[in-house]
């Protein structure tokens, strides 16, 4: 499942996508994120999924534009669009870099 956490508002689109088919629940992304955006636990969207998966914590879902801006020094980080720079830099985000199976992507 592709779980899109975040929102779209007047300024752009801010989504962190967790591919729960790739995620193995290892939890490496949780301490890697300096701002507590990610958590690992029971799959909230599939009650029959036995293994734990990563998700974006409830408290962060409506503000990742600002929280993640600290990890995204490029100019478009508050514009909510995917650019060549944001795509190239994505692999260097602490959360993405920590995830060996490559389950985490960002839309901006």
């Amino acid at each position, binding site marked *: 499942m592709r779980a*899109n956490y975040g*929102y*779209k*508002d007047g300024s752009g689109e801010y989504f962190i996508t967790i591919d729960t088919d790739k995620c193995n629940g290892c939890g490496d992304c949780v301490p890697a994120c300096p701002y507590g955006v990610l958590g690992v636990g029971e799959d*909230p*969207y599939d009650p029959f999924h036995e293994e734990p998966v990563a998700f974006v914590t409830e408290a962060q879902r*409506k503000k990742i534009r600002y929280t993640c801006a600290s990890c995204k020094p490029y100019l478009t980080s508050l514009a909510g669009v995917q650019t060549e720079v944001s795509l190239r830099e994505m692999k260097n985000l602490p959360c993405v870099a920590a995830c060996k199976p490559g389950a985490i992507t960002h839309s901006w």
Partner: protein
Amino acid sequence: MAEKKEYWRWLETRWTNPDIDLDGKEGKIITAGCDVGSVSSQAVVMVDGKLYAYSNMRTGSDSPDSAMRAMNWALEDTGLAIDDVRYSIGTGYGRVNVPFAQRTITEIACHARGANFMYGPTVKTVLDMGGQDCKAIHCDERGKVLTFLMNDKCAAGTGRGMEVFADLMGVSINEIGELSFDIDEEPPPVTSTCVIFAKSEATGMLKKGVPKNKVIAAYCSAMAHRIYTLLERIGVEKDFAITGGIAKNVGVTRRLFAELGLESLTSKYDTQIAGAIGAALFAKALVEREAKK
């Protein structure tokens, strides 16, 4: 003094399946789902995975109480009592406040499962327009979630926003959809995406002498467009189903279909009960899983 008219008040519904006979209910798996949302609460009772009874009513100020009231109304005159229910699941915004539920499941999972039951296994895209959020879901033929997206940042595209707007216009929420087509030409949508601003924009239009139905049309079309842009992100695959209260508002849905170039399936049941149906179905699956252990 004349009582103030409650324009926002939508129709509460309840239904019992006349084709299910509960004589000899022993051996039957009776499960329930209760969806407590910010605006409405639904209770669904299923017998062996078949829809037996449901209710849909307004959520009061107290969630546990709303859950109980919805459940009691669904059970009314059925001859069943809450103790006959083997397993209950709470879902929705107030899911942790369902006193009789054994566990909770998120509304995304429940809506996909419920839409699969209500609209059939061909449904691939489910749009739920609820009281205070909007969810777009892709699911497989068993109603399992493949992709989802939820927008709950702002109330503009939601049932609550529509209630506030009905009150402002002094038009019953049940008639808004039809009235929005009683116009000479389609106006441009209101530009504000925020309820507060959209409200003041609409008030401004009325003051300028724009006919009321046209203001309503402008609001409905803004809402349809907002939902359209949300759907764009995950894409819409046929078959398409809309659940939730706004599914009943043709002013929004028809404009959305026009933008999508696609219509949605219809159901003979109340579009607001999808989440509770999904919960009751999960309850049955959990009972069966327990039995196998």
